């Protein structure tokens, strides 16, 4: 596979906005590098799915949304929660399984929830978020709300019946949903070309009368501009939209994955298109960022991560007597 050249060209944003997006990508990267380390120390257990390499997708897309919008995410959602506005402390404490975590330690890494930022999970059944997002958007359409429901899912989900049923329902009912497919080429270890007869994912959406576009997911500028246009169209009532955001996961699927299914050279080649260093280089080339400023930003983010770890370490355990708490509404 020949990759396109690394993202380049002018950044059409004012400096503060550009630096906000850079900062958020860096926050995800450093949070997850730390999480991987903590996994090695057995502070974090269970499944841990890292987003490293895909940061531009969540950052570019979520900065195109408004606070009133809904977000439905997958089990690889630390970045989405963080960019959407969840405190890093609450994410880290949840990964630790602590009571101070966003879900009181009930969900862990895969199930980050926050009603205050309209983050509806953290869903680990591949594809199940699509019908859910369709229903959230249906509720808004029925009540005349101009809210967008953004639904993130991997390309593996397009093989699920849930994807096809949801595309049809969303188009049939013209609901305000933005379907964001994070195509990182591998469903766990199964490459798209080994699992789909039709590898053009947009063609699938279009077959349901859902307008679709492909976007370079390593280019935060491209992602953000595409998501901004798409969100606006959805908000204006033009029905659902589908974005296939082409990206790549630099790390293993989860901490249990020995990565037998892909060549190291492929990973290295994709790293030349890395969302962080290419964006940083573009900002520097335009004089919007100096190396000193980058290092200062990185140090600040490092402190935020350190605070999150300290918060999680100091956290408490949910009492076992509260095991059945929140099963039903009291």
């Amino acid at each position, binding site marked *: 596979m020949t990759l396109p050249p690394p993202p380049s060209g002018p950044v059409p944003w004012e400096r503060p906005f550009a630096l906000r997006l850079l900062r958020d990508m860096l926050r995800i990267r450093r949070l997850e590098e730390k999480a991987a380390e903590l996994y090695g120390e057995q502070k974090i257990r269970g499944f841990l799915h890292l987003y490293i390499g895909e940061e531009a997708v969540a950052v570019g897309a979520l900065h195109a949304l408004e606070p009133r919008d809904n977000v439905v995410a997958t089990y690889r959602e630390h970045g989405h929660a963080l960019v959407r506005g969840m405190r890093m402390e609450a994410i880290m404490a949840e990964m630790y399984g602590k009571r101070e975590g966003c*879900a009181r330690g*009930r969900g862990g890494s895969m199930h980050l929830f*926050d009603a205050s930022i309209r983050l509806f999970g953290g869903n680990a059944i591949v594809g199940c978020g699509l*019908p859910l*997002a369709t*229903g*959230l958007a249906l509720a808004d359409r*029925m009540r005349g709300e101009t809210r967008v429901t953004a639904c993130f899912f991997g390309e593996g989900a397009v093989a699920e019946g*849930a994807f096809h049923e949801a595309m049809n329902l969303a188009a049939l009912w013209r609901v305000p949903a933005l379907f964001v497919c994070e195509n990182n080429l591998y469903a766990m270890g199964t490459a798209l070309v080994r699992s789909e007869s039709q590898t053009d994912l947009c063609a699938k959406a279009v077959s349901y009368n859902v307008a679709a576009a492909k976007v370079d997911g390593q280019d935060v500028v491209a992602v953000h501009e595409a998501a901004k246009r798409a969100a606006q169209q959805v908000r204006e009532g033009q029905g659902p939209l589908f974005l296939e955001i082409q990206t790549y996961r630099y790390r293993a699927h989860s901490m249990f994955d020995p990565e037998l299914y892909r060549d190291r050279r492929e990973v290295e080649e994709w790293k030349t298109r890395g969302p962080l260093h290419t964006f940083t280089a573009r900002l520097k080339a335009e004089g919007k960022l100096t190396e000193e400023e980058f290092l200062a930003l990185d140090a600040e983010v490092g402190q935020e991560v350190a605070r999150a770890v300290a918060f999680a370490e100091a956290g408490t355990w949910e009492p076992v007597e509260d095991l059945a708490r929140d*099963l039903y509404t009291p």
Partner: protein
Amino acid sequence: MRRATYREALREALREALKGDPRVFLMGEDVGKYGGTYAVSKGLLEEFGPERIRDTPLSELGFVGAGIGAALGGMRPIVEVMTVNFSLLALDPIVNTAALYRHMSGGQFSVPLVIRMATGAGRQVAAQHSHSLENWFAHVPGITVLAPATVEDARGMLAPALADPDPVVIFEHAALYNMEGGLPEPCEVDIRGAKLMRSGKDVALITYGGSLHKTLAAAGALATEGIDAEVIDLRVLRPLDAETILASVRKCRRAVVVDEGWRSGSLAAEVMARITEQAFYDLDAPLARVCSEEVPIPYAKHLEEAALPQPAKIVAAARATQG
């Protein structure tokens, strides 16, 4: 007391809910133009329009999932699934999303969704339309499972189900739609417990759904033999009303559980386990049960009847407990 059919009672409940709360809408296969597979929603499309009486494509996984989303988004959807057999295509969103969202999110997201579906046999519609899988749902913490067996419950259970902030699954027995019964005004019922349907002292017959009427018939037959049977309608299959069950067992000291589900791993097995755990020393005879035979429900009438709990089998089982 006014008379109505089970179907009319269900329809009245739907109409009342749709009139009373703009957040309520009904969706499912053929609920609109067709008037409902079992004609429950007949006339509602004309009255409430296609937005609120929403026909869906044949996408159980999709529209049940969308119902969960709409519930999370502030609506009060009633999702109709044509039969419990078809609901297996939607088990994922029910079990993996609706039932666990509140707990998994640390109490942040409740799913106020009502799912209605037909269940059970007795109409010669063969194996893919006749099963009783209520206990599959009753196995799952986080949902409430209801089985209206009377016209009164058919009329009354929807309102409290809609008022419940958590998911509720309602099983309508397909053989009961034409049944007539009395309807009190106003019809207010709870969705918390079992109900004593016939008082007796010699044996407790514990049942639910379509088997209630066979069990009441059996109790009538037992009376002619001098056996005074008590009949309990479970009504709520999750959470089980252990208190009512145990009180009846302690009084009668003998019990037969009647359940249209297959015997192995049945709801009857759960009821019997509870009795064994909590009232073993109150029993004067081994517990017994009458369930469906462990075969797919066949088409031919005589075979279908042979596969299901019948009054004669219930009478025999109750008689055997009298020792």
